[in-house]
């Protein structure tokens, strides 16, 4: 049985490193409109192909084609476009102030705006999102007040989280945005519990959760899929495959020989793989999954195939580990440009309107920034140390009261 061939250890390598030409030759770019749209009560086992294909609606000419076209009203498309552009302007504004040393840390979602924005729009306003740090677009699409978002990032008296969280780690129950954890993956399985609670109560609300390609390797990913499958939880489980974790490419996360959507197959869950830079495709796939969940048919896994166009965070310099021009060579383009082109092709938008909208959202960010920046720090002369000690427990136990006394001197 045994042979004498020595074994060898395989370490996956990305197609290109700094100094090399970007190489996306192994990334298949199927035509838009090619895949059919199955019924929502399809047997998961009958749609394995969707875990390996790519749902695309917007073609090269900005036309929406095929069975997955969600046929959204132009007004909805313009709203989506605005939310994506505001998200991008916001990201750029916050990146700048981090570089100016006014905030400690920031995470951009550049290139991935369609994911959060289209999904927020496809879900119901009452559905609860369990995001990662790269779905700020959810809050923006749902109209969360920009000053509160920025307050969180500035960690000053405008911060609804009282300075307790790293910038970008928002939380808002009222806007269906679960408290972001710095620990990767943990929220993915919690979302399944939330969805089960909704089902337990006979409620109609769904949960939706997001996880990065890198973080799918965490245990919580496995628990989420296992529990969602066992209890048929009404949850939409989204994997944002933006090709990179921090410096490690998706092959290190287990994407070298298969897709992330395919993980769903083994749990008996349906999987959809979607062009994440295609606003319409993302909207359509999310709608399909939500309808399925609302019909008590359980969870769907969606892989959103996209590209992290900028650094992992302000602490990162991607030119150290990937070719600088990789982002511009991503074969699926930019989600904002693509949706804008589509609206123009529909005759519902113009280059001028696009320029005006850009100016408007950038102005809004600047103005909000000035307003929030003027707020005092939490622990300055006008502040207090109280938020450091409260809400550890519902009521403050004696040992914390004593420590607070000591801290306040």
């Amino acid at each position, binding site marked *: 049985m045994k042979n004498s061939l020595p074994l060898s250890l395989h370490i996956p390598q990305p197609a290109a490193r700094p100094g090399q030409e970007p190489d996306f030759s192994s990334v298949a770019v199927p035509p838009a409109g090619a895949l059919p749209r199955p019924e929502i009560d399809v047997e998961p086992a009958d749609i394995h192909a969707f875990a390996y294909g790519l749902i695309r609606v917007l073609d090269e000419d900005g036309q929406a084609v095929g069975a997955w076209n969600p046929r959204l009203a132009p007004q909805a498309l313009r709203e989506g476009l605005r939310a994506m552009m505001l998200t991008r302007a916001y990201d750029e504004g916050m990146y700048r102030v981090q570089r100016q040393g006014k905030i400690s840390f920031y995470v951009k979602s550049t290139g991935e705006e369609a994911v959060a924005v289209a999904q927020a729009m496809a879900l119901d306003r009452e559905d*609860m999102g*369990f995001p990662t740090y790269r779905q700020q677009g959810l809050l923006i699409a749902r109209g969360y007040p920009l000053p509160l978002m920025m307050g969180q990032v500035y960690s000053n008296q405008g911060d*609804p*989280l*009282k300075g*307790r*969280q790293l910038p970008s*780690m928002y*939380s*808002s*129950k009222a806007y269906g945005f*679960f*408290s972001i*954890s*710095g*620990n990767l993956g*943990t929220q993915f*399985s*919690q*979302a*399944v*519990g*939330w*969805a*089960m*609670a*909704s089902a*337990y*109560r006979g409620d109609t609300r769904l*949960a939706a959760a997001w996880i990065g390609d890198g973080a799918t390797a965490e*245990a*919580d990913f*496995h*628990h*989420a899929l*296992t*529990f969602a499958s*066992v209890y048929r939880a009404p949850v939409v489980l989204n994997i944002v495959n933006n090709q990179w974790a921090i410096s490690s490419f998706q092959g290190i996360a287990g994407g070298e020989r298969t897709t992330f959507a395919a993980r769903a197959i083994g749990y008996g869950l349906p999987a959809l793989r979607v062009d994440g830079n295609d606003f319409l495709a993302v909207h359509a796939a999310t709608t399909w999954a939500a309808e399925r969940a609302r019909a008590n048919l359980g969870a769907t896994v969606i892989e959103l195939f996209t590209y992290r166009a900028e650094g992992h965070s302000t602490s990162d310099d991607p030119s150290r580990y990937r070719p600088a021009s990789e982002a511009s060579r991503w074969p699926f383009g930019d989600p904002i440009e693509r949706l804008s082109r589509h609206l123009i092709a529909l005759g519902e938008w113009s280059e001028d309107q696009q320029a005006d909208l850009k100016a408007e959202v950038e102005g809004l960010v600047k103005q909000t920034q000035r307003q929030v920046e003027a707020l005092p720090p939490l622990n300055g002369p006008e502040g207090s140390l109280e938020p450091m000690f409260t*809400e*550890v*427990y*519902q009521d403050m*136990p*004696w*040992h914390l009261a004593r420590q607070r006394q000591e801290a306040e001197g």
Partner: protein
Amino acid sequence: MAIMNMVQALNSAMDVLLSRDPDVLIFGEDVGYFGGVFRVTEGLQKRHGLTRCFDTPIGEAGIVAMGIGMAAYGLRPIIEIQFADYIYPAYDQIVSEAARLRYRSGGDFTAPITVRTPYGGGIFGGQTHSQSPEALFTHVAGLKTVIPSNPYDAKGLLISAVECDDPVIFLEPKRLYNGPFNGHHDRPVQPWSAHPASQVPDGHYVVPLGQAAIVRPGEAVTVLAYGAMVHVAMAAAQDSEIDAEVIDLRTLIPLDIETITASVRKTGRCVIVHEATRTSGFGAELSALVQEHCFHHLEAPIERVAGWDTPYPHAFEWDYFPGPARVTAALRRAMEG
């Protein structure tokens, strides 16, 4: 009022909770149809329905995460981890998530879960059915840690834990489930019915979190204990004929520091007893606190009696388990020292 052992008292607590509040539900490995490997949830699924008490996949992190999600929604989950030795896979969800959620969300989301789990030795369970991990939770801000030592407290504390809006780690001394074991493995075990705390009201009542009980008043030395060690301490007090004041902590966090300091200021001596490994066990915190609060009253070094700093070795069950002989010796040292 009925006579209950600890298993029955815990079962009764959950029965009461399920009946009063539709948001309470129970889940864990084997807790549903079967009623749990220690039978603590016996009959609850049958009585309250399939979705109120059900089995889970064997993935402790997933189980706790599910509970956190449910609690964030507004339910009040009671989670059973089959043995405390198997809580580690869920440690991240407990520490990074349940414990932090209220704080990090500015009070927006909370995680009022109760994690019940049998712990401790005395059943020849070997190293993976005998551990006492309480100190791994007492170090974590945001968690409460509760350990009952008798049926009455078990029911009243469990109801308090579930009704409390903070996440609670509820450790059940499995050696006490069926009788108030005092560590004399070579003497007959008393049934709970012979113990006054087996008188348990049928309906709803609470034993508040954060209050210790003086289970044996005394003047000579203070003994701090919890769980099975309360009974060991009582046996040692009797064996040694030393007038020990035995305090059953009942809640480790938040700790009843007043009862402790009042006692040690009175006796001037203190012996701490727990089953967990000694180094960095909760006894260390107790020792530090007692010395900080009662330094000028102490007449002898504070003694710790604890599990050896080794895994719990199967064949050496009674050599490992801190029994009355070791506590007696510590009491003697405290009286001399």
